[in-house]
């Protein structure tokens, strides 16, 4: 780990504003979950993916540094849909339950604990979210795993609401799940009312209703998930039904009996960190959801947690491609950063990770990480010129 950090410090991007052009060839290049090149090539230029596979010209200029990665696997930089890192208190607003306009990126410290670890483990972008400490907790933003200031990709990626017990507080309203659901419904009805004054909080809620912002509800047990789904269910007169709102669930570990309803009403599920001690149904839930075409992403506090979750989900039946999509393209789309991250299509940021195996297998190691064309972690010499 120390060597990784040193390597990281040595190759910090600010020392070199223009990354070298790189021509990478490798046994396996995962451009996107549905496009995997075998013995493929990838041209990076100016911090972007300049060409992929057959579109890479046979002759490249002398300025291009060629790297043959042999049997390695190149995947898009990993993306975590939801994390609070270690900012325990900075991301928790507990005194009032209604704080939809808060921005988690304002509590994000790019030099803070855990960010370098994320990068060393191959996570190049993540959604930084408020903690589930109140009901309408606030806005999650999307950031690049980059210690430079200005690494924020989006200030507003999704609105997080929480109806899990830790969002309740006996010192204020709501103290119960009933109260929490009532707060959510009332907030949306008020914001949608024609006479409502324009305030920052109502703008956020209107963006949710118009579908501009995803709405992520943290719900864990079967009951909590069922009530979260009610919000979007026309049959239950849900407050979001009929609007353009996109409902996502965070958690849902106990909802294996609600899989069909999730598939019908939710746009996707962010899986909370999995560990071997969970019930077999909870471990098999990602596979069950993926089988019904529900899009998945992961919540993780560290890259290790992300990879363990993916490995356990695959062990319990999730297809490898779906697991990789849940670590790359799908969270990028959910966070609204898929114009730059999540795949290695032409024109995307040159954020990639080189593994010595399939990242879904826990035995695979990160051997290099490239952020906007700069080698930033792993073996420092591997992607750097000389």
């Amino acid at each position: 780990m120390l060597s990784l950090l040193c390597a990281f410090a040595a190759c910090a991007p600010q020392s070199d504003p223009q990354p070298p052009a790189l021509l990478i060839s490798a046994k396996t290049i995962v451009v996107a979950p549905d496009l995997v090149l075998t013995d493929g090539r990838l041209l990076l230029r100016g911090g972007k993916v300049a060409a992929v596979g057959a579109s890479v010209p046979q002759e490249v200029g002398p300025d291009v540094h060629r790297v043959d990665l042999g049997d390695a696997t190149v995947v898009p930089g990993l993306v975590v849909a939801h994390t609070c890192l270690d900012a325990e208190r900075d991301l928790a607003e507990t005194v009032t339950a209604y704080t939809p306009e808060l921005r988690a990126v304002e509590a994000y410290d790019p030099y803070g604990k855990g960010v370098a670890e994320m990068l060393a483990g191959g996570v190049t972008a993540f959604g930084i979210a408020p903690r589930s400490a109140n009901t309408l907790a606030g806005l999650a933003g999307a950031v690049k795993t980059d210690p430079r200031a200005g690494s924020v990709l989006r200030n507003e990626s999704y609105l997080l609401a929480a109806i899990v017990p830790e969002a309740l507080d006996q010192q204020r309203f709501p103290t119960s799940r009933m109260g929490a659901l009532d707060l959510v419904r009332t907030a949306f009805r008020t914001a949608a009312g024609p006479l409502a004054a324009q305030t920052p909080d109502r703008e956020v809620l209107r963006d949710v209703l118009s579908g501009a912002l995803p709405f992520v509800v943290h719900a864990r047990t079967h009951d909590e998930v069922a009530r979260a789904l009610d919000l979007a269910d026309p049959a239950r007169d849900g407050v979001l039904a009929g609007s353009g709102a996109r409902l996502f669930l965070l958690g849902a570990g106990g909802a294996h009996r609600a899989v069909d309803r999730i598939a019908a009403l939710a746009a996707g599920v962010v899986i909370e960190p999995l560990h071997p001690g969970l019930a077999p149904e909870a471990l098999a839930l990602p596979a069950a959801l993926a089988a019904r075409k529900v899009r998945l992403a992961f919540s993780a506090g560290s890259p290790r947690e992300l990879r363990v979750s993916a490995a356990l989900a695959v062990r319990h039946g999730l297809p490898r491609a779906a697991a990789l999509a849940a670590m790359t393209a799908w969270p990028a789309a959910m966070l609204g950063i898929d114009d730059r991250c999540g795949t290695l299509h032409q024109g995307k940021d040159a954020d990639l990770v080189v593994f010595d195996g399939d990242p879904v297998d826990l035995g695979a190691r990160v051997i290099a990480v490239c952020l906007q064309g700069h080698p930033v972690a792993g073996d420092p010499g591997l992607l750097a010129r000389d």
Partner: protein
Amino acid sequence: MSRLPCWLISAAAVGAAAAPAQPPSSPAPAPDLVLAVGTVHPVSGPSFADGVIVLGGGRILAVGPRGSVPLPDGVPVVALPNGHAYPGLVDACTDVGVPAGGFGEGSAGLEVAPGVDLDAHSCRAMPAGGITTWHVLPAASGRWRGIGALVRAGADGGELFGESARGAVFLRLVGPAGQHPIVRQKELTDLGRPFEEAESYAKAVRRHGEAVAKYEKDFQAWLEAVRKGGNGKARTGGGEGDAAAAQEGGQAAAPAGPKRPTYPKAPPPDPAKTALVQVASGELPLWIEAQRRDEIEAALALVAERRIVNACLVGAQRADTVLDEIARSGVAVVLTPSLVPVELDGEPVADTLAAELQRRGVPFAIASGDGRRARALPLLAAACVAHGLPEEAAVRAITLTPAQLLGIAAETGSLEAGKRADVVVTSAPLLRSDARVLRVLRDGRTIYQGR
């Protein structure tokens, strides 16, 4: 092949003697099943493709690539052409089957086997994880915790392994978090005293045996004398202080002849001391849970001082600070890694322990340590691969090495002719995340079949 201390081999021999299901002299059993799989990973040797395993009488009769092994006629064949066959996994240290309440106050002689809940849900779940044998360590309180139990997976709950199912004597040296090092140091001194007491107990037992032999001789002599005396009455001890002898010998005292000898008093039975005597002789393995550096050093010092030949460190989270000492001491290590980063006393635990032990030739097993993780045993091993452990060594650490450390390597732990037919077949190489368990056989019987 990694270096194994000689006691491992002797321990394996002890295990074989303890549970002889098939005496070597009896005729070879008839084959009753043939497993044909895409790849066989015997662990004791290199893997090979298109393999055949012939089973009979609960044992492995032959293993080899198709063509090299004569196939018996008229025997059912289970063909899993894409399957990977491994020996049934061995979880060296777990709490699967331990009742929630634990075992109360422990002692070196406390047998865990009768207390294991073999019908527990966790026991029934083991075959689905490919585990056919596991070692339950006593969840008792105190430093000396008892004798672990060896449990075998079954189609319907667990079964005890062999007659006694005895695993290792368990000593736990781990102090509470935040304990001052000096206090802990005090706690860690004098660990050898129970062995000294056990030694004097063993001496007392030996002396008693000698005294019994002498008593039998004296009794015969006394009987002779009585018969010769002819009156049928013998002189007893008769002394005022010898009431017991007086009672035994009867009331009427004869004036002449030898004294009737008294049966020597036996030392009271003491399972704890007996267990330690067996540890000292190498008959029972001693497993010492030690996590911090001073705990590990105390364990190594105990092993050296008492010359314990069959010892193993359990946990050893801070082993990275004493790797050379461990390698020199000849003890083995049972690691209980976690999938997520672990901290001890606020400092992260090194992920590279398994790889470092492998590099130094220290035999080590990877165990779940915790029933909730047991079913993810291959993932625990896979996570060590990411930190530099070769894949073959990782598989060995959840099969053959734990069997050797538990003294049951003659019975299980690898796919070799003569061992019990404990086989797990997976859909992909075991350490890969998408490896599904297709079939588990224990003693030649299918106890689990995946979808």
